[in-house]
């Protein structure tokens, strides 16, 4: 909880600084845009949180976004599939990818890093193959569907600012994810096996099944993210659509309180972490006019964040151990 407050404080501080330093940051258009992008990236961040909680990693998210984001318009406009068929196809493919990752990791005991690294190369390569590396998009069609990503919901009595539609998607996904992780036995199983898979298995938990489920959730949300991203920008280039997005998602999860050692994760935290990263990007572009150093700034902030977190944690462990010892001595 303290950690969440800390990261939220940092987000506020960066926002205040940006609002002071740049007039364009304060504009309704910019704020709306930030919120919409946060919602889109938040969805994939929540997905990867489930995998990170198990102590795993998914590097293929960006390529799944590419596969789905290019695949959907390709199926609709090039292959002339019907909308329900195309949506069903991308849903099945995303879940299938997660299932395959999970099976390889649990049954063959391959390392998540390797499996999903291969996925990263595989899905983008496949996409570039079937699209012949051509840009795909919706053109002027599918306006109804695109509302899901580009639509706005006006707030009564508020002028000049409307809630972007993806925010609704994010809230629904986040609420379900948070309930699943914190209020169901399956969420508890994930948290337990993330800290100690053996002990969880010895306690009668089907650890293999739970890990597979985590990868399916992750890839499915990456697929949902892919649909939203392409609806947002209308067209996608297979060569770089979704490039590096897995790193944004992982970084957001870590900033939001996930430990890559597993067993820790917060849905609210990952959303705040996502917002922080996107605001930082935005600030770098607006304030310095040098968007090319954006990665350096984000990298530095995340590194500082995890160092601070580790130091605080060590201090807490020391204090706690000393207290436990003192209590034992007085008994």
């Amino acid at each position, binding site marked *: 909880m303290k950690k969440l407050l800390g990261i939220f404080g940092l987000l506020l501080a960066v926002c205040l600084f940006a609002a002071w330093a740049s007039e364009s940051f304060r504009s309704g258009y910019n704020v709306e845009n930030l919120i919409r992008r946060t919602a889109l990236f938040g969805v994939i961040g929540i997905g990867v949180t489930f995998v990170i909680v198990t102590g795993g990693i998914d590097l293929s998210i960006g390529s799944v976004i590419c596969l789905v984001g290019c695949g959907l318009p390709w199926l609709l406009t090039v292959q002339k599939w019907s909308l329900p068929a195309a949506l069903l196809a991308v849903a099945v493919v995303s879940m299938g990818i997660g299932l395959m990752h999970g099976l390889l990791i649990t049954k063959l005991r391959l390392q998540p890093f390797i499996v999903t690294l291969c996925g990263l190369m595989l899905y983008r390569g496949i996409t570039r193959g079937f699209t012949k590396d051509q840009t795909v998009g919706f053109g002027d069609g599918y306006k109804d569907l695109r509302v899901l990503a580009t639509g706005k919901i006006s707030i009564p009595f508020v002028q000049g600012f409307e809630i972007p539609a993806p925010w609704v998607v994010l809230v629904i996904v986040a609420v379900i994810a948070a309930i699943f992780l914190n*209020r*169901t*036995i*399956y969420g*508890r*199983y994930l*948290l*337990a096996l993330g*800290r*100690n898979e*053996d*002990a*969880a*298995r*010895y*306690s*009668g*938990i*089907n650890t293999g099944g739970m890990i597979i489920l985590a990868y399916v959730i992750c890839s499915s949300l990456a697929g949902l993210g892919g649909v939203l991203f392409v609806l947002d920008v209308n067209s996608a280039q297979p060569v770089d659509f979704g490039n590096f997005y897995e790193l944004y998602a992982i970084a957001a999860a870590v900033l939001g309180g996930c430990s890559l050692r597993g*067993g820790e994760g917060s849905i609210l935290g990952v959303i705040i972490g996502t917002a922080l990263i996107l605001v930082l990007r935005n600030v770098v572009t607006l304030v310095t006019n040098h968007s090319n150093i954006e990665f350096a700034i984000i990298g530095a902030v995340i590194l500082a964040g995890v160092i601070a977190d580790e130091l605080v944690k060590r201090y807490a*462990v020391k204090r*706690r*151990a000393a207290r*436990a*010892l003192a*209590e*034992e*001595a007085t*008994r």
Partner: protein
Amino acid sequence: MPLLEARSLTKSFPGVRALKGVSLTVERGEVLAVIGENGAGKSTLMKILAGVQTADSGEILLDGQPVALRSVHDALAQGIALIHQELNLADNLDVAANIFLGREPRRFGWIDAARTHREAGQFLAAVGLDVPPTTLVSTLAIGQQQLVEIAKALSTNARVLIMDEPTSSLSAREAENLFKVIQDLRARGVSIVYISHRLGEVKRLADRVTVLRDGENSGGLARDEINHAAMVKLMVGRDLSQFYPHAPHRPGEVALAVDRLRTPAHPRHEVSFQVRAGEIVGLAGLVGAGRTEVLLSLFGVTPALGGTIRVGGQEVSPASPQSAIEAGLALVPEDRKQQGVVLGMPVRENVSLASLRRDQRNGFLNLRREVELSAEMMAAMRIKTPSDRQVVQFLSGGNQQKVVLGKWLAIQPRVLFLDEPTRGIDVGAKQEIYKLMEELARKGVAILFVSSEMEEILGMSDRVLVMHEGRLTGELPRAELSEEAVMHLATGVEVAG
């Protein structure tokens, strides 16, 4: 003046005070045995003497001069070498390379292979190991690897050789050979600090005995005072009969019947036995005899290859811990920190882990039930913790083990397996675990426990099963229990008649 002297060493770890002011002296050319129950602080003391860990306070003198042993390197430079219980050899390298690992004889910066092999040969001869120095360590038997470790220690010109439970994984013949090497080294003026649980060995080898209990010195014995009863009394601090709360049980129905069980570890051997409700059965044997493997197969961790298992008359075939639990089985595993508890989670969530499925409400956690359950188990197991929100990592070993027991009690098993239930926990907590085992047996739970501690096997069992190299070699009712009878069966000699 003693060769090595430790004065009032203290050392604390998170949640445990491992040493509370321990002193020890080692004379030149003697075998000093250091004994004590698990958790008495022997291993910590030895790690401090060998520079693996540093003491919080106290001093160490060598030839009467204070020395600072801040690293293994410091200790080796002073002539103190430790041979760990788990061997630390690089088994992909040959014997000579292991002996000189990190100190390779060099010529112009390149390893001088000829000299390495020649000198290694001399040290191998000194420990009576007759293999070429070019042999790959992975092809040696455990007993031979141990001798390589000793040769390695000698190559550093060690004056003090510390051996931590050196016979724990050796066969009787290998152990015999080791004893000869030890006596040889003593004759050459090397001092040996010998840590062991096996009092028979201690009696045979030691010139002097130092006993630790709960991180303190509890006494010492000179050569002519070394006998079994005296050692046990110093180790546990009272007579054995008082320490083990054993009362004879009136066993009920057969709760667990195992017939011709074959485990993946010993696929050619079949194991058959029964455990009755309310009975405590000990499973004895040397390390590697296949005891843990039997429990793991019964509990579905490594499913059995063949044979039948009946729980309360019903045939079951546990393919996973999940199905074993459904059949009414529970296992307190050997490695508490790795398999028993989730260290980073609070007591409450550890206690409820196995019963979440039963107490669920359509997949949702029953949080109120969880709070009740943990309160119930903390009382029943007498878990000492400020609250059930305390993270298990910060509890002592004994309390962690009670958390594991509580987790299993919560599912009310018919049969409880315990694998080395008191390893690494202090004497007080040990006795509480024994009392809990007794209480459970009285309530009709069938208990099967594996232990490498003879005292525990003799003190707690209604009946003892003994294994040797994957086979059951015998069964001893309480009336016929003795250390000799158990060791006899454990070393593979069938009882006549």
